[in-house]
């Protein structure tokens, strides 16, 4: 399901997408989790297939 929408995002927005952040196992809370979330946001490792 998500894959279709991600492909749609890649097609429609292409290079405008600056970062793709994964779903976390639980909602990020507290400084430690924020630090972890920040790594994903700043250095994106997920590519999108259009």
């Amino acid at each position, binding site marked *: *399901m*998500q*894959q279709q*929408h*991600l*492909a*749609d*995002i*890649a097609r*429609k*927005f*292409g*290079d*405008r*997408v*600056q*970062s*793709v*952040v*994964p*779903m976390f196992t639980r909602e*990020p*809370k*507290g*400084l430690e989790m*924020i*630090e972890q*979330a*920040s790594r*994903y*946001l*700043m*250095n*994106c490792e*997920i*590519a*999108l*297939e*259009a």
Partner: protein
Amino acid sequence: MPTLVRPRGLESYFNEHPDVEIVIFAGKGGLGKTTSSSSLAWYMSQVKKKRTLLFSTDPQASLSDIFERNFYGLGEIEVAPNLFVVEIDADRRVADYQASVKQKIKDMYGLDEVPREIEEYIDSTSAEPAMYESATYDAMAELVAAHEYDIYIFDMPPFGHGVRMVAMADILSKWVEKITEARSKVAEYDAIAATLKGEKGHEDAVMQELIDIRNKIKAFTDLITDRRRTAFFMVLIPEKMAILDTERALAMFHALGMEMSGLVVNQVYPRELLDRPGTSEYLRNRS
């Protein structure tokens, strides 16, 4: 063969735009805007060692939630070295503003009490969403104008993608300009009448107030429309409504002659989940 889009992450963006001092995260509620703005604030303050202010006006106090402590209406609080958080109580700001308008009316016209109809009118404006927005922008402008931080990160409330701020500022600015013009004509006649009567002309307090408002709005819009100093990011999730919403926001930005700095796609299940044998049917359907 599918084309691959490889987002570079926000670090590259900020390395290429070192002068950015205002970052605005826009988008609907519940998409991870607060997580994104908190993450960037962490990076700026801890990795880049910039004195960082993270700002929100969310009545649901989501920064309080993510940082697991209460900030709401308590001013700027340091949560880690260089990282300050402020959660504005917009309702209180609206109430304070209304009180100050009433006081100004009393001072300007030498009244003990504000006439009842005018008072009712002022009180009724609390119900206006525009008052809430205006209080938010006012708080933002005030913080930026104080120049106490290297970077300001705004977790915008979910109205109008934060874009309406620019449109509204433009309309307000034009309106104030028109009124200022009309009042300056009145002031001219006033001055002539005073000279004829042999009195000294008095300063127009209403006019001064309008000029102050216009200058404040202009300084702030100039700043947020300055691509070198301000970055707008929109947060979305891989769902149809969020995609449509993002398209609309991009069109609004374009219509206002502005540019979105980038998009952040949140809550993504990695593709590998589909191929992993232990993945539950629920997750498989979602991803």
